[in-house]
Every structure is written in C-alpha cells, then in structure tokens.
C-alpha cells in the first residue's frame, strides 16, 4: 500500500492521481469542494474517491466501501480527529483514515490509498 503524497498548492490547477506508471488527470482543482469528495472512474474500471479538506490538501482512496461493497465513499462526509483527516461512509458510518486507508472502527478493514498531486 502506498501512502498519500500531499501537496498544498493553492489556487487552480489539475488534480492528478498515480495509476500504474502514469499520472491520471482527474479534474480541475476548482471542482473540488472543501469537506466533500468526488468519484473518479479509473481506466481499469475501478473507482477512486478524491477529497479536499479545509486546508486545501487533497487525498485519494478507493471508492468501494468494504463493509457493504457499494462504491460510495466519495459521498461520505470528511472530518478530522486528532489532526488526521477521515471520511465516514455514508452507508453505515464507519470512518476511514484518508492518509492510510485504515478503518478507524474495525482493525480488520481498510481501503486502498492513491498517490495524488496537484499542479
């Protein structure tokens, strides 16, 4: 599992996501709302969830909620606890650390993390 590389560049620019050996261009930064996520369709058919927090930092994790199988994590609410950002699944509210993908409510569960950069 990779860990997220986080840049804090402000202003406009593109959000890119590491996929295989390439950077996949996701969208214009301006399309992200602080505190919310968007879903990204990956070339292999998988899905990622990309979030921006209040400070403008961008994170990406897998979009699939491992507890229900539904691809919905991008629609969860972002929060922070002890300075670490997390998203709460909109279905059954389990929280996932955005930087590591670890589930904060169940040690046995985790989601993949994608490296992101903005430029």
């Amino acid at each position, binding site marked *: 599992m990779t860990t997220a590389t986080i840049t804090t560049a402000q202003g406009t620019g593109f959000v890119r996501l590491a996929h295989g050996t390439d950077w996949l261009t996701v969208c214009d930064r301006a399309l992200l709302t602080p505190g919310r996520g968007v879903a990204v369709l990956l070339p292999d058919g998988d899905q990622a969830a990309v979030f921006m927090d209040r400070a403008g930092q961008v994170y990406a994790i897998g979009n699939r909620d491992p507890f*229900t199988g539904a691809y919905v994590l991008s629609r969860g609410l972002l929060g922070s606890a002890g300075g670490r950002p997390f998203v709460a699944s909109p279905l059954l509210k389990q929280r996932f650390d955005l930087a590591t993908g670890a589930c904060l409510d169940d040690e046995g569960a985790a989601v993949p993390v994608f490296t992101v950069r903005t430029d």
Partner: protein
Amino acid sequence: MPEPTTPNALAHTAAPTIVVVGHGMVGQRFLEALADRGLTPAAGAARVVVLCEEPRPAYDRVRLTSYFDGRSPEDLSLVERDFMERHGFELYVGDPATGVDRAGRTVTARSGAVFPYDTLVLATGSYPFVPPVPGKDARGCFVYRTIEDLLAIEEYAKGAATGAVVGGGLLGLEAAGALKGLGLSTHVVEFAPRLMPVQVDEGGGAALLRTIEDMGLAVHTGVGTQEVLAGADGAVTGMALSDGSSLAVDLVVFSAGVRPRDQLARECGLAVGERGGIVVDEECRTSDPAVFAIGECALAADGRVYGLVAPGYEMAQAAAEVIAGGRSAFTGADLSTKLKLLGVDVASFGDAHGAAEGALDVVYSDARAGVYKKLVIGRDGTLLGGVLVGDADQYGTLRPMTGTVLPVAPEQLVLPAGAGGPVALGPSALPDEAVICSCHNVTKGAICEHTTLPEVKKCTKAGTGCGSCLKVIGQLMPPPEDAGLCGCFPYSRSELYEIVRTLEVTSFAELLDSHGREEARGGDGCEVCKPTVGSVIASLAPTVGASGYVLDGEQAALQDTNDHFLANLQRNGSYSIVPRIPGGEITPEKLIVIGEVARDFGLYTKITGGQRIDLFGARVDQLPQIWTRLVDAGFESGHAYGKSLRTVKSCVGQTWCRYGVQDSVRMAIDLELRYRGLRSPHKLKSAVSGCARECAEARGKDFGIIATAQGWNLYVGGNGGATPRHADLLAQDLSDAELVRLIDRFLMFYIRTADRLERTSAWLERIDGGLDHVRDVVVHDSLGLCEELERMMTDHVAGYRDEWAETINDPERLRRFVTFVNAPHAPDPSVKFVPERDQIKPDLELLAGPVLAVRTLEGTAS
C-alpha cells in the same frame, strides 16, 4: 430455558445438596445470594436443585400489570439468560414439590423425581385468599397472582364488558388497573371504609379515592361481597353486595389478600403459626434445623408474615449467609412502600398511622388535585413515618430520614411549591448509612462508590427491585463529565442552537473555530457535528440571515449524502425519490406522471407508510432528469432525505366518511404545506384523523391531530418504530387558527431544545417537567417565548422554496449530480439491477468483491 443437567449421584457425594422449593422472586434472590457466596455447583461447593411450580423461571410479580404497557412475559423475567448454566443450578420448571420426607431427607416432585437434600429451603410464597362466598367458583371468577392468571383474565375479558375486583388494597388496585387496561368498565369492592387500608390513613384514602374515581373506576367501600351470581350456563352475571345492592358484571377478580403457602410444611410436620406461616427463627430456620423457609410463606421471628418483596429478599440473604456458614439474622422489616397504582403515586413509610405514643401529624391535603401528604413527627421532632398520595417524589429522601430529626420544619416538606415549600431536601442531605434501595438494602454510601446507574445496578442490585429509588440514585450519580455533541464541540445541540441564534453565526468553520474544543479548532469537524450544525443553521436561516438553500456555499459540505443529493441513498449506491403528496391526496393526472417517470427510468415503485410513493434505483446523474419531469408536472421535494417534516397523513374525513366530524384532508394539506422543508433535530411525522376512530393513526406521530365535534385535539410526542409511544394530549377542542398557532410554537420549541437525532417522543420524556413543562411553555407562555417562536415559524413559511425546483434551474447546482468527476456522462458500472416480481432490485452480487464478503446491514450497524 436452561436444560436441567442430569443428576449424577456420584459427583455429589462430597458436596452437600441444597434443594430450593419455589422459584419466585425470593427463590431467585436466594440463588443469587448463594452465587455471591460461591456456594454453587460451578464452584464445586454444593449441588443446588430448584423446583418451580410455574411454567417459567422467576419473574417480576410486582410489575405484573406492566404486561399491559406492552411488556411481554419475557420482559418481566428476573433471571439472566445464562444464570442457571453459569452457576450449575438445576432448575426444574413446571415440576413442583409434592412431598417432603424429613426423616429420609428427600423431596419428591410431581414428576416422580426424588431429590435427596442436606439443606432444604422452602420459598413457596403465598396464594390468593378467596373469601368463601357462594358462587366463587363460577366461570369468570379469577385470582390475580401469576402470569398465567393474567393471560387467563385477558382471554376471558375478550367476551366481557364489565369486571369487578374484590379487594381495594394494593393488589386489588393493581388488578383493577389490569381490567381497565383490558378495556373493561371496572368496579372495586372494598370491605374496609377506605382504599388501601393497610398502607394509608383516612385522608390518604380519600385523596386516592377521588383520583381513582376520576379515572372512571367505580369504587364501593365499606361493603362486602355476599354472593357471586351466575347464569344458567355457569358464567358470572353479577355480584350481590352486603348493603343490599348488586352489580351486573361479567368477570370477578378476587384480590382480597394472600395467605402463606405452608401446606407442604404442615404435611411434613413442621411447626406452623396459628394463622398460617411456617415458623422460623431469626436465621430463617424452621423447627427442623435442616429446613429453612423464606419469603411470604414464612412466619418471621417477630411474629409477622411479610407480604412485601423487600423483607423476602432480606430473608433470602440471611438464609444464604447462614447456610454458607456465616452469621445473619432477619429480625423484622419496615413496611415502607412506594407504588404507582393506576398512575397515582402512593407511598407510606415508617409509622404511617401515627401509632407511637405522643406522635403528631403534619398534614397537607388538596382533594381537588388528589394530593395528600402526612408526616408523623415524634414529640422530640423525630420523623416517625408518613403517607404520600398523588405526589410521592419526596419518598426517596424522607424514608431514609425516618428516625432522625428533620433539618427543616416538617411543614415546609409537605407544602406545595409556591406556598413556602417544598424545601428541596435533596439526597445530598442524607447520611451515608441511609438505606436508599429498601428492596436490596443498599445504603447511600454503597451507591456512591459507583458513578453510573448501570454500574450501580450491576454491582449493588440497587434499583432492580421495585424501582422506586431509581430517581434518587440518579440524583446521587455525578453528572456526566462531558455532554458535548462530539469530539469537536463541548456543547449539546440545543446549546449550539442558542449560540448560532444569539451570535448569528452563519458558518460552520466560524462556529468550530470560536466554540469548538481547543484541539478541534481549525480542523474539519466530523460526520456528527457537520450535519447537526448544518441543520441548526438551516432551521435558523431566516432568523440569522443565512441562505435557506441547503446546498449553498459552505452549507453544501455539511450535509449528509441524502441532503447533498436531495434523495435517499440505498444499499447499492443508487438513490430513491419521494415527491411530496400533501395529505396523501393526488389527482389521477399526477399519479399517471409518477407512473410514467418510473416506467421511463426503470424505477422500482413502492407505496410508503406515509401515503406517498417511493421511486427506487436512480443513479446520481439521473436525479435532475427525473426531477425536471416531476417539477414540470407540479411536484416538489418530499424531503424524505432530510431531518425535516416528512408527511402529514390523513383519513378521508367528513367530506366522504359517514363518521367524520371535520375536514381532515384539508387540514393535513394545510399543515404539510406550512411545515414542509422545516429543518429539525430529527424527522417529523404528522397525521390528521377526521374522527375519534383515528384511522390516520395520529397518536403515533410527532404531532397528531384528531377531530372533535368542537374542533381539533392536538397530541404530541407519539412514535412508532422500535420504541412505540402514544402521543400525549396537549390541548383540546382548538379552532383551526388555535391549532396552527400551537403547532408553530411546539415545533419551534422542540427544534430549539432537542438533542441531535432526538425525536419528539424521547425529547418529551427527557426534558425537565415533561409534558406539563412543554404545555406551560407553548400553551401558557410561561417563558414568554411564544411570540418569538411564532415569528420564527412565520419566517420559515415565508422563506420556503422548493429545493428541487431551485436545483434544476441552476446550472451551477446541477454540476454536482455526476457520478464521476472525470467522466460526467459515464453511468456508474457498480449500480446495476436484476429482476424481481416484475420490477428491479439491486444487483448485490456485483458488489461482493474479493476484499470482504458483503455484510448484512444488520450485522455491522452499531
């Protein structure tokens, strides 16, 4: 039910065998006392056999009547699920002891099984006394003692209209409550000149009488039952009374006291009292040193047979201690008691009748309000006892003070508020050795070693008997250290509401940085506080000058996904749509539009419980297209996704129904349109019924309206769901304008003071003063708030806009309705459906990926 283990004679040769006859409340307490002392088979210390006559293990007989509050026989059980197995006790239910051979030291059960014993404990309890009147065995005559009695009464009552209870004591009034609960018109016949002659004095009896008669029960005191009359078919038809009058009744319950069940003891030659009861010494030992007797079957060393559970528990403890080799004695108990009979608080404690030499009474009596309070004071100012009827809140503090000189003048303790009293004599005034729980003999000092009520119950058993001490225990517990909403805010929802309202804060970030916990400031909040604050700001939007549109600006990031997409997320990531159908009234044309939209988008269609239509299976990107069609046809958001008003259900009312007395449909539509879109701490449901038949089920709603010939009755705080609650009457015979004004005030007061996700039912139960307080505030304007509450509702009504109409007409707002930010027109490949009963259902197999098996929603919900 525990499976009794097979007796193994060899295994028990070393350890002594204890046989317990009777598994009622006291028998169970005795087993718990054995377990507390390690005298169990599991510990290898003894074999313990329990013979139980009833078909079920011990249950809470004291609360038998609560069966009619929706409790099941299982709810009344006193035995923890694995109690018997854990300790290795052998319990035989439905198999009473039929004989004791004291010489051979064996007990024979009805099944024929013979159990040898080293120690025998008789806890056979008592049986109801049926006076020897002619006709007492007619069909339709019952006693009231066991769950089986109660089930038999319930069955017979289905074909009965009127019932009578013989006996106006504690048990008689309980039984009368049961008959009333079964819908019977009920008579109470008491031979003594007043109700509850043992517990209360004449004044208390008078207060009780008035309140109970007000409930619609017919009370006949000072008369005896001469004969039960039966028809040719042998069924009860009436009763002849000693004053020459008669009552036409279909059912008679004898509840004229109990007698100790000492037959088994008599037959095996144990000493019994002249008037019954197995003679025991202070150690609860009978005339045979190997045999003990405890509870209501025992004639205690002080010459009394105790018919209350608390002394029985004390005997159980004493006997267990003696059998375990310790020293203990039961020398007598006080007969203090507090009950809620038919909803009336009745308590008596200490020397309630002022029998002591030179005792003086301090009495407050208000027959109009049904309140009677008497304190018995000794010459030296010592509190000797008392009687409280109608308001027994002080019982918890006064009873432990019995025997001490009161710290304030006694009259201050009986006078009502506003008349120089009552002085708040809180439990903090009690000495540590004061007994708070008299059922389990637990002192204030023992309770104060713990910090939460569940811990107190588990460790000391206090509060698990009659429950009358629970309020005092609650007051002894330290307040919870942190009542904050979540890890981000140290304030409750209602406190945040006040902060937002008074400081006119319109942004979550501003509120978090100014009023959040130190460590959470500057952060992102969390999934708990963001929607809560979003809802508070939305509720107050017209007042504090925030945008009322929930998806504007920063508000957009605060909402749960349902509010974010103005639809309801389903388990496979698709959404459902509920257009508003006010009052459940819909034209054929609109019904056709819904059908066409569902057909064209392939949506699963189902009628909801709130008289609306739910369309399932829409992808995020389809929502605006679907709503464009719906809005064009005149539909608007039904707010099924929001913590806001859902629906106002209605019956068809006066317009069509031959029983209707008001136009319930028009009122339902008016109310639904008035309160639509109102953001609140939780969802709000309502209904309007056109007559007392209540077809709209209004009393199961947060605010329900039932038509009367004079206008409308308003009920509040109802709920269905997991904890059903009938709504309480707030005001009656209201005009249209009065009704709307009261609901305006009620809803705004609820929104202002409720906790996050607290329905009106839980709110009403929680807030200090309950319904009476809410009535004071919203009907009598006791806080001077009503004008403001009404103005806020007026602002809400004026500021309402349909969220979906605004969304589909705004390209900026529509941008969020794409599944993928990098492929706006691609449908979500994970949202697929399979056929089911001519419609669709989510394809869940598609979602069961390799990482984790799909869990059921029930399996992971917390």
